[in-house]
């Protein structure tokens, strides 16, 4: 049994090493290990029954993760009222699932999509939403504060949810959250529970850097530095609610969940 756990740990480490910057990968692996090994396999004399039990839990974990998006989409439906305007940032599959479900439920709402440069992920999302016949408006990232007054709520996904209750997400989320907070617009984060990570950043630089190349379209002079970070950290005071497969949570509950999971 110990051998199996060691093998699992090795596999998990290899997976994590593949992309050290991905928080959800790390968090997911850690949580999987905890979830699976939480069963006191030692209580089973028979190795085979212990193994099958571990397998069963592993499959359940996979199912939960898959179903998570559906659960979240269902939970958030009550918050989308007819005639509302939703601001989204970048392309998050969870958020897309939410909007798809809402469209299927024949709700009337409008979506403002930020461009999500430099990856232009926002444009992709706009295309998908247009296919669903949802009214979409594209904006450049700098136009967020300008449009904030007509927005009713902000939906964002998350790369990782940290112990303080804050989220790590695509670059730009923090400034949207600040603008929304200053104008009293709620910011809702949709994240599966396996993204809960045992990190506690104090500021932006406290994160593992995740850099990606940025193409400005024009050549950049060699002496000029470029800020290449791909994500930022939004502190919990700017977030209103977290929608997870564990339910609708306030940011402070994240730490409680983590303590219970990890102790």
């Amino acid at each position, binding site marked *: 049994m110990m051998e199996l756990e060691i093998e699992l740990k090795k596999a998990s480490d290899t997976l994590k090493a593949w992309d050290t910057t991905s928080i959800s990968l790390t968090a997911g692996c850690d949580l999987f290990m905890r979830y699976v090994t939480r069963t006191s396999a030692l209580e089973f004399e028979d190795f085979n029954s212990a193994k099958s039990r571990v397998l069963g839990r592993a499959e359940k974990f996979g199912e939960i993760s898959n179903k998570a998006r559906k659960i979240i989409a269902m939970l958030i439906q009550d918050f989308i009222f007819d005639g509302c305007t939703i601001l989204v940032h970048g392309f998050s599959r969870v958020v897309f699932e939410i909007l798809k479900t809402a469209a299927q439920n024949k709700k009337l709402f409008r979506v403002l999509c930020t461009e999500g440069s430099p990856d232009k992920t926002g444009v992709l999302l706009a295309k998908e939403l247009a296919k669903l016949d949802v009214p979409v408006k594209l904006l450049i990232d700098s136009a967020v504060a300008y449009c904030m007054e007509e927005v009713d709520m902000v939906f964002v996904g998350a790369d990782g949810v940290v112990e303080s209750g804050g989220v790590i997400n695509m670059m730009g989320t923090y400034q949207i959250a600040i603008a929304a907070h200053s104008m009293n617009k709620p910011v809702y984060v949709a994240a599966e529970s396996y993204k809960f990570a045992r990190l506690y950043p104090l500021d932006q630089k406290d994160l593992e850097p995740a850099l990606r190349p940025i193409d400005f379209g024009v050549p950049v002079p060699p002496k000029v530095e470029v800020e290449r970070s791909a994500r930022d950290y939004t502190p919990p005071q700017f977030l209103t609610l977290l929608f997870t497969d564990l339910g609708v949570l306030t940011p402070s509950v994240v730490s409680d969940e983590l*303590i219970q999971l990890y102790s």
Partner: protein
Amino acid sequence: MDPPSRFLHSVPTRFDSPDRLRFHHFSFPQLPLPRHDSSSAAASAVSPSSFSYSTAATSPTASPGRVSRGSFSRFSFASSLPGVGMDSMAAATSSSVPASGLTTVSVVNMPPPPGLSEKASGVGVQKSSKPLKEKTTKAERRALQDAQRAASKAEGGKAPLVSSGSVASANVKAAKPAKPSSQENDVAVAAAGPSEKDRKKDAPHPRMQYDDESRVVKAKRRAVVKQTEAKNRVELFRHLPQYEHGTQLPDLETKFSLLDPMYPAVYKVGLQYLSGDISGGNARCIAMLQAFQEVVKDYSTPPEKTLNRDLTAKISSYVSFLIECRPLSVSMGNAIRFVKNRIAQLPITLFESEAKAALQSDIQRFISEKIVAADKAIVRHAVTKIRYGDVLLTYGSPSAVEMVLLQAHELRKKFRVLVVDSLPKLEGQLLLRRLIKRGIDCTYTHINAISYITHEVTKVFLGASSVLSNGTVYSRVGTACVAMVASAFRVPVLVCCEAYKFHEREQLDSICSNELGDPNVISKVHGRGDINYLDGLTNNANLQFLNLMYDATPSDYISMIITDYGMVPPTSVPVIVREYQKEHLLV
């Protein structure tokens, strides 16, 4: 013992002032460890009289300073002591000295202390009373009791210390001229039952409100340490105890020989609290637990008693003594709860030696897991937050933060430290000295400069006496100020606190629960004799001094709390308190 020595750093520097020097030599004589011989209990009534405080006892008017430097006497001095009707007994039994052994006589003959803890006298008297009392019935005892009460009332109270020495042990029952409190009478005469009840009522509630007159009077009667209440008190803080400092120590020292049932280790710890030699949540807690370990080691169940109840009662009496020396800190309160819990959970079927061994190992485990290991975990988490080029601010002398800084330095991280300090305690200087010795770059300033220096600070590390359920950090006075200024400058504030110090109560301000220190200390500046503007004004009706020891920092100013459970936001404290209690129940 190695681990706790870290926490006793305050001891050396106290010796600098000549006033304090006398306490340096304050150490207990190397007595043979008391053996509890219930059979010889009645006979050997020697114990405390043979302890070192004989010099004080001989000259009750001797200056306080002389006491501790007196020669440490043994049995030979017993004769010079007052209240030694057991003198003959002392000579007779040169056997080992039971610490809580019988000094029935001394108890009886000692008038002034506004009442020994009844448990103490109760225990002592009981042992001797048992063989003598078998024959009397309850009615007779009641009658005797009433007669004595009347007699004491007639006497009007105090008999001088020395003269009562003439009362021989045989006259225990008859001659009780100086029983100031009728409660003592009750205990002296009654059988085991009532005194148990008294014992339970005895320990003053740790957070007693001192503005309730009747309660205060009752507490004073039970008190072991004679405390004179301060005259000039701030109205807002009337619910907190405030005593004249400086009168307690010598008073306590003279009484030591008469405080028979007080275990020497506990007594020593109490005096160290009183004089300020041990300060800081961890140090006080560890010292107290180690004293309790010794108590358990030398404990033996009196006949017809269960270990659980009797030992718990004993611990309660020691705790009430410690409270009188200095109000309990939250860390101590939680540790005491743990110890009592463990005692209560001991199966009745265990042999005494097994039970004692189990208890001792439990206490040892508490210290090593909840304090020492917890500190290591905190250090491990906290050093990850220290980055290259950081400027760290710390206030006072928190033991956990010091460990973090030293460890970060070991790991070759480059950072510098800003130590903020404040009068009157100047605890920051202790920390400063230790950091500089290790070669850490330090800056030192006082708290009035905090808004000036905070702009260059990147992180603030603070310690805590306790963290309460609503996320409020209860810590040395001045901490709230530092946290608020840091918050205004958007500097993250990290509080390092072991989980055993968390408490489920909630506090909204620094007033409802606090500790008042010696007010006279504020009117002077240590080392600056020329600043004497307030001399002669200390008793002026228009001037009140307020020396608060703790303050409460609201959770909004705290970014993160680092505990042995990991790094948590202040909102998660109730979860940790819950988890912590669950652990205890399972253990």
